[in-house]
């Protein structure tokens, strides 16, 4: 078994050696340069198996093939141009100045886009409202407009409707900025004898 394997390996190596020889001949017809000498060494066919395999493999392991390497020094000018581009033509990393200040909160935002701060707050309350609305509607057919009632707001309805709109209760307080009138505090409940606080008209 072992002997057959070694024999097989030997024949393979012989083929490889022949191939390398041919390659070297095609590349350098007048004879290979000294660094290729090891690879293109003509292998005598009659050699002992162990000797051939050992020597060839070790040679490859020690020296190997030498691939392409830089032939000349890259000048400083050239190196800097490659790194950073041409002085007059390249795109420099400049601070982004196309920004606007939000009229409501003072954070910066890109023109034509929502303000990240305002939108973040809006998103939070919108998600809470959507969750409440979807829970209220459930799998029943949706037949009426929905109107939010926030925590602390009182609406006296027997059937869960306000002016023909279905009420859904949001577990958070109404944010102060989400109000129709700036002069009225919307998220403050008056004393208990005032039973009805109308939800302000929204959006």
């Amino acid at each position, binding site marked *: 078994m072992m002997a057959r394997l070694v024999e097989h390996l030997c024949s393979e190596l012989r083929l490889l050696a022949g191939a390398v020889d041919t390659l070297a001949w095609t590349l350098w017809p007048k004879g290979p340069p000294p660094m290729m000498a090891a690879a293109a060494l003509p292998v005598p066919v009659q050699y002992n198996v162990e000797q051939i395999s050992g020597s060839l493999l070790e040679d490859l392991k020690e020296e190997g093939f030498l691939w392409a390497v830089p032939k000349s020094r890259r000048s400083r000018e050239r190196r800097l141009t490659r790194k950073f581009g041409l002085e007059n033509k390249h795109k420099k990393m400049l601070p982004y100045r196309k920004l606007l200040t939000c009229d409501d909160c003072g954070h910066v935002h890109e023109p034509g886009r929502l303000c990240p701060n305002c939108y973040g707050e809006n998103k939070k309350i919108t998600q809470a409202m959507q969750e409440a609305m979807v829970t209220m509607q459930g799998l029943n057919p949706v037949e009426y407009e*929905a109107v939010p009632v926030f925590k602390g707001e009182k609406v006296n309805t027997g059937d869960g409707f306000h002016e023909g709109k279905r009420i859904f209760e949001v577990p958070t307080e109404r944010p102060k900025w989400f109000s129709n009138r700036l002069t009225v505090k919307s998220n403050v409940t008056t004393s208990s004898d005032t039973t009805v606080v109308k939800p302000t008209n929204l959006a």
Partner: protein
Amino acid sequence: MNQAEIRKLIPAVRVAINAKHRKFSNPKGPEGRLTMLRKTVTELVKLERVELNYQRGDEARGYAERLIAMAIKHGDRHIPTMEMANYWLTEKQLVHKLFKVLAVRYKDHTESYTKLHKAPNIYPGFYRERVVLELKGNPFPPLEKKNSSHNWIHNILLEEAHQDYIRKKLKEGERSN
């Protein structure tokens, strides 16, 4: 002659639509693309405001507009419209919403029924442009505020100051008389 009649059959979509649809390469092919868009349209009708990637939001917007326009024009006793609603809305309680809530809400509208806002780019991010697609007239807080309003605090104060000034002038006039 014929063209005019055909045009009247289909309600006009009130938003700009690309001449060519987006392909949205999908392992299930065009059918998978439509499944994806149905999901988005259903979500929009259900939640009334959704955040999406720009390409998907813009593509779904046209389909939602068309669906609402058909519901307004033909009502719920028109078989093709009902089939469309059944196809596009995967959650069937929303078919009621389309005809009983949205069609009523937008009956007298002269503009588009949806609005597409550009969401802020978060740094550092993946730089996929995000948008917020919403149905108009939803119960949520508005995303974009009006440019100017008489409810603004400085406008209220200025108005009060103006009223004070007028009162003062009137009193002075009375005294002099």
